[in-house]
């Protein structure tokens, strides 16, 4: 992977970086998640240390780092899924659109409706394709069959899987291939019309072809959503993300625009990691 990086002439890299900087200055996207001094413990284990991170609208933010560095934990904190582990304790602030997500007035179900999640392993419900997509809207009280039909079609189209499944909407979702199941799960997430989509290594269980499809999809989705993606695959991070955060031992080592992280990282550990020297 280092080879692919060095294949680009240094001058070209600089030029691109300058263009990026200019673009950034022109239109800094709005912040959706503002994390300040976040600390998290699993029982006695200090899993996240003083995290400070901004997630921007209409951007893909990649979180990279070796196994056990806390990247998934951080992602799950953003929609408070991490609290399903009983021993979890947090300090610090995460503001979602200016409002603390730990505030008692913000109900966790509300937060998760606005901050959708796609998991590492495709996890469709053991129901039909249609029911999988309609589940979200239904639990939020939509009963009208015509509206549901429309949401199902729109979501499946949004995840670019409509053409593959339109003739078998009422078949079991388990009949789909792994890659299709994952795009179905993304469609299911789109059906609740979130503002942010969290993705926890969404392609790690997929073959290369399906992975490319999901990546294409992510590039399309960022026009409308803020996307935070945890990934083990650094090429993937460099291909699809606008910003990259490098996590190590529960800390953010470096967080910057993706081209900066991959071309001119300031921290030695970041450079070692992206060049495959550890992790």
């Amino acid at each position: 992977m280092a080879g692919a990086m060095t294949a680009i002439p240094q001058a070209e890299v600089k030029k691109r970086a300058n263009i990026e900087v200019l673009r950034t200055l022109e239109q800094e996207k709005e912040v959706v998640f503002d994390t300040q001094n976040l600390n998290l413990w699993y029982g006695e284990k200090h899993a996240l240390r003083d995290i400070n991170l901004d997630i921007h609208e209409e951007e893909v933010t990649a979180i990279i780092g070796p196994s056990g560095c806390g990247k998934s934990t951080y992602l799950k904190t953003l929609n408070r899924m991490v609290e399903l582990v009983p021993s979890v304790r947090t300090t610090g602030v995460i503001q979602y659109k200016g409002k603390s997500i730990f505030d008692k007035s913000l109900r966790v179900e509300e937060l998760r409706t606005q901050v959708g999640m796609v998991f590492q392993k495709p996890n469709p419900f053991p129901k039909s394709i249609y029911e999988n997509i309609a589940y979200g809207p239904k639990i939020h009280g939509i009963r009208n069959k015509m509206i549901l039909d429309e949401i199902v079609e729109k979501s499946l189209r949004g995840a670019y899987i409509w053409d593959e499944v339109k003739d078998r909407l009422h078949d079991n979702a388990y009949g789909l291939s792994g890659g299709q199941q994952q795009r179905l799960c993304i469609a299911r997430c789109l059906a609740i019309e979130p503002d942010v989509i969290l993705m926890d290594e969404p392609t790690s269980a997929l073959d290369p072809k399906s992975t490319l499809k999901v990546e294409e999809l992510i590039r399309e989705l960022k026009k409308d959503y803020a996307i935070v993606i945890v990934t083990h695959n650094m090429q993937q991070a460099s291909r699809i993300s606008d910003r990259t955060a490098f996590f190590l031992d529960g800390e953010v080592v470096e967080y910057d625009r993706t081209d900066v992280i991959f071309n001119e990282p300031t921290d030695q550990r970041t450079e070692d990691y992206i060049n495959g020297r550890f992790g």
Partner: protein
Amino acid sequence: MKYVDAVQVQKRMNFRLIVNTIAKIIFFLSTVFGLVVLGILIYRVFSDGIGWINMDFLTGKLSTDPEKAGILGAILGTLWLMVVVAPVTMFFGVGTAIYLELYAKKGKLRSFIQTNIANLAGVPSIVYGILGMTVFVRALDMGNIVLAGGLTMSLLILPITIVASQEAIRAVPNHLGEASYGLGATKWQTIKNIILPAALPGILTGAILSLSRAIGETAPLVVIGIPALLIPFPGSIFDKFTVLPMQIYYWTLDSSLVEEYAYLASATIIILLLVLLLLNTTAIIIRNKFQKRY
């Protein structure tokens, strides 16, 4: 030199293959053992009892005269008993299982309850009969009616139902629940729409087994004091009743007095088996219907 020596492997190969075959034979024999015993039992029962089964026997009232005796009352009693036992057991059994698996915090209290439920499953059924007698028949003054018998029977099979339901709920993959929570569903919505439907086939399998046990159980009803004599057919859960296994029990007991009672008992066993088969088939059809949806 190789560690896996071809000559040694060759030498031991015959022995390994013999052990392999012996293992297969042992397991086959243990299956055959059960089948043979069951076969003998069914043969005896059928050869004794099949001649006594006719419309009069199926639709008649109890009688001390073997030629006139019928068991419709006991069939109805068994069915009425199930009307009480099935919903009560399912509700409290599945309810307890949901609480323990999905709500209760892991800790000392939970494992204390858990251990005791497992222990209760081993308590002799006659003890439940004494409990039912004390609580339902006497303290609540119900008398020996279907409701009292049914509640007693429910208590008896509740531990089995709880444990089986817990297993079924635990077998539902975590990622399904997470997917539902991730869409903003509440805990109850997740349980109702995702976890319970996925666990239902397992829950029903447990329920089928425990209800079968309730249908065949006799001792608790003996303690409660089910009359063996002529009573009107039960028409509701508030009527006095008798059940098929009770009838088998009394007829077998009295066969030393009247020889034909032994044949009547055999005939009743056949009917009991048929009722069991009918109820189990119904339950299995329901279960398969739910399994098909996935």
